[in-house]
């Protein structure tokens, strides 16, 4: 064994506190060390060349670099070792900067510690094994969970690059929340006008497959090779036969509140959620359909000219393989029932922003009129309350939902546009309008549309002679305010979908205390997750408006495409390995593996002359956490790169 030790000055970062020359001299005295030197910047090109030349000249077969943290330059020096002809995994680093020169001032102490840190790295590297990179094939298909604007944009981007994308949407149509909006801030584009073309693009793309009215049941595997189980719920309408003529729902006798219209309008039992639905194929709501509840009616089946209605249709479970997964599962509204003082549920005329969107929409349940749901009369004085749920650690969310200030301003504007005589009052805590043309938009709503902004909280809402009396404080003037309102609109915050933790567990991605999915790095990897091959877009990661959602959708697509274009994926070989002879087959490791990366395997035990079961690591799935190694009583399973021998050798060297 011929080890080379390379001590970096890091300018003065190390050299000022650590006597690098002395460290190098001491290192040279260690057994198995054939060469030791220092250099000003080991990571620089000349530094790396120095290493390469030393390897050649002294026939070094292992390398210790004493420099900064391996978090910073482990990759650099592995590559350098490789170029020098040394297996990249026969290189170890001694962190004499972050863990030594920067945290100690006494030169003598720091120098002594640096020598010991090198001794530790030498101990470890002496037990390193040459390792080969792992290569895994990539299934050239991307799964997109969620068919809202985030999922739609991702699908378009991936299809544009000529790779297949599959959208999984649990509702009968794609479109998501955006399909319900009337106009979008700050440009006031009609949401449908900009969304519908994208929906059509997706539906017409030869690269995009849609599984609507479908749910994800399970995910197995790893980057490049995910196997996903999908439940295609029984739509009761044959998607291949249906032409979307609408005969069925035009004749359906059932009327129930429409979810799409937030219960403000009605739909039939066989229905499409909204006129521009994609696919334009109805679904039967079996809870309310007379055929399913009372075995009566059957009109839709009789009337359908294409025999597309199938009452006996069953849920279908399919399994598909994907190379990457984009999570675009979106958000839901904060449940503001906790705010009894706002009267939601008690008073029909206290509604949420999403109700307002539907009312403002000219093809919506009120034909674009802003009315009081209690009596259908047009609303004149409307009070908007911001931060319902958001920024309220006591009762709601710790975070700011980011969009409510903007959509409330938009609502105040739309109110005036729909009714010249109307007056908007907005209770707010702070106005957060950080976006391109956002501040200007809010100002316009105040200045040109006469919306009255009141800084303060609403303390109580009660009904009096057909009006909602809103009591609150204007903290700027210090005055108590009382407004007789026709309508109260609550700007409810955005929260994670209730089943987000379940999805996260399926995908092995972490989520925060708000159940929002956690990105791999908040700044430098905002659409990646720690599970490679799984990417995030849209509001499932944090509340986002449409531009941000679309931007992250394209970002996630690029990340997924980055995988798609590779022939095979290179992975670090730092994975667990089983020693068949030592394994007893107790499978403590299988139970303790968070990634289902260990399987049972039958082997022929030559000593016992019998077949027996032992553990087997799926290299492609193993993340290298090493938990299995610590639960294995017989130490039959070990972790490459952090092996028992390596760590024990380090301990002995201490």
């Amino acid at each position, binding site marked *: 064994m011929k080890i080379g030790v390379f001590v970096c000055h890091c300018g003065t970062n190390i050299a000022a506190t650590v006597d690098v020359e002395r460290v190098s001299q001491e290192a040279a005295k260690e057994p198995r060390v054939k060469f030791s030197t220092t250099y000003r910047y080991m990571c620089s090109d000349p530094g790396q060349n120095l290493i390469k030349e030393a390897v050649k000249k002294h026939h070094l077969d292992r390398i210790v670099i004493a420099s900064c943290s391996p978090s910073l330059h482990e990759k650099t020096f592995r590559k350098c070792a490789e170029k020098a002809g040394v297996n990249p995994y026969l290189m170890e680093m001694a962190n004499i900067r972050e863990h030594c020169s920067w945290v100690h001032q006494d030169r003598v102490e720091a120098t002594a510690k640096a020598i010991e840190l090198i001794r530790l790295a030498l101990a470890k590297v002496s037990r390193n094994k040459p390792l080969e990179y792992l290569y895994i094939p990539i299934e050239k298909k991307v799964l997109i969970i969620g068919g809202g604007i985030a999922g739609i944009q991702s699908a378009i981007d991936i299809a544009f690059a000529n790779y297949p994308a599959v959208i999984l949407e649990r509702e009968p149509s794609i479109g998501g929340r955006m399909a319900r909006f009337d106009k979008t801030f700050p440009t006031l584009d009609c949401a449908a006008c900009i969304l519908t073309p994208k929906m059509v693009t997706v539906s017409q793309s030869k690269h995009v497959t849609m599984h609507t009215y479908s749910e994800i049941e399970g995910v197995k595997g790893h980057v490049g090779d995910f196997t996903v189980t999908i439940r295609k719920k029984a739509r009761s309408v044959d998607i291949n036969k249906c032409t979307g003529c609408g005969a069925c729902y035009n004749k359906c006798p059932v009327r129930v509140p429409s979810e799409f219209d937030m219960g403000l309008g009605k739909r039939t039992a066989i229905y499409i959620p909204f006129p521009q639905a994609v696919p334009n194929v109805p679904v039967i709501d079996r809870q309310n359909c007379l055929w399913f509840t009372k075995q009566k009616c059957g009109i839709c089946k009789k009337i359908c000219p294409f025999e597309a209605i199938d009452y006996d249709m069953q849920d279908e479970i399919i399994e598909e393989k994907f190379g990457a997964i984009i999570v675009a599962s979106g958000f839901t509204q904060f449940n503001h029932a906790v705010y009894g003082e706002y009267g939601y549920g008690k008073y029909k005329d206290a509604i949420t922003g999403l109700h307002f969107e539907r009312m403002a929409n000219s093809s919506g349940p009120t034909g674009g009129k802003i009315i009081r749901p209690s009596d259908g009369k047009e609303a004149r004085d409307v009070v908007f309350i911001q931060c319902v749920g958001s920024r309220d650690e006591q009762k709601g969310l710790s975070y700011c939902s980011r969009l409510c200030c903007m959509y409330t301003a938009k609502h105040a504007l739309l109110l005036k546009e729909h009714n010249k005589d109307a007056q908007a009052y907005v209770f707010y805590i702070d106005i957060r309008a950080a976006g391109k043309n956002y501040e200007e938009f809010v100002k316009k709503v105040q200045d040109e549309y006469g919306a009255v902004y009141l800084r303060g909280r609403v303390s109580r809402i009660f009904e009096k002679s057909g009006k909602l009396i809103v009591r609150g404080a204007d903290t700027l003037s210090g005055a108590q305010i009382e407004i007789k309102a026709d309508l109260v609109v609550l700007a409810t915050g955005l929260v994670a979908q209730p089943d987000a933790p379940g999805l996260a567990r399926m995908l092995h991605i972490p989520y925060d205390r708000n159940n929002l999915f956690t990105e791999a790095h908040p700044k430098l990897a905002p659409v990646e997750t720690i599970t490679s091959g799984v990417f995030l877009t849209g509001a499932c990661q944090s509340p986002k408006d449409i531009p941000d959602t679309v931007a992250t959708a394209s970002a996630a697509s690029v990340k997924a495409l980055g995988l798609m274009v590779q022939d095979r994926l290179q992975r670090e070989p730092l994975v667990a390995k089983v020693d068949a002879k030592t394994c007893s087959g107790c499978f*403590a490791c299988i139970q303790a593996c968070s990634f289902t990366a260990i399987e049972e395997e039958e082997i022929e035990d030559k000593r016992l002359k019998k077949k027996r079961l032992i553990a087997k690591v799926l290299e492609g799935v193993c993340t290298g956490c090493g938990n299995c190694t610590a639960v294995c009583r017989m130490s039959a399973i070990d972790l490459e790169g952090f092996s028992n021998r390596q760590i024990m050798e380090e301990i002995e060297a201490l």
Partner: protein
Amino acid sequence: MIDRIKKKAEELLRTKQVDLIIGYKRAPDGVSVAPVFIDKAEETKELIWDTYCVYNLSNYLKDFRGRKIGIIAKACDARSIIVLLQENQLKRKDIFIIGVECSGIVDEKKLLSISPQTSELGFDERCRSCKPSKPPIYDVLIVQEGQRPQAPRLEKDPYGSVRKSEAKSISEKFKLWQEEFSRCIRCYACRQICPLCYCPRCVADQTQPSWLSRAHSFRGNFTWNVTRAMHLAGRCIDCGECERACPVGIPLRDINKKIEKDVKELFNYEAGLSAEQKALLSCFDKNDPEDFIR
């Protein structure tokens, strides 16, 4: 009772439901008991059952893997069978458990000085805090008839003696165990006799890396004894075999009991009650205690 055990064993062998019966027979000394392995129906006459049947026969099961075995099991022994099933060391269909109701077994060491049947002190200490008299798993249960001497119940807290030791000062504790472990001769009898020590290669015998010093030193003895105990955490069912086998009388059960107590108090986990249970250290609860962590 013994007649019914014999009858069942005879029937199992005769009808070829099992290839072998593992039971107890009288040892040549005429008092104590030895394990017996019977593969002929007529030899089942040899079987006995009394308070001297101290051994946990499940330790022998692993030697006959792949064959159909009938085994006589007390409540404690049956719990180790459950752990073996839980850890895939046995197939349920390969074993036929003749469960025997038990009211306590004797402590051989105590018997040297005292007459067994008459004195309460003759019973094994652990039987005094054993809850079940019936095994938690069996294929046939042989119940007791009539009155038999019952191990007197211990004070309510089965961990009374552990608690007493816990209350000692650190240096007292160290002195105590230093003395105990210094007697260890590393014969590994505790390991050989333990029905749950079935590793193909024990870490104590491994050299790459060398987990523990093989030298007969306090260092090595301490490491071995802690390793053994840790490897039984959440698995030990307190059959007491290790302590019985220890030639130098190290109170190994006390260590096992300490862990058993902690595991029960911290995680509400008891070993060997269900084969479906996950291994203690291969699972967790989000609310596991962490007041010891900075």
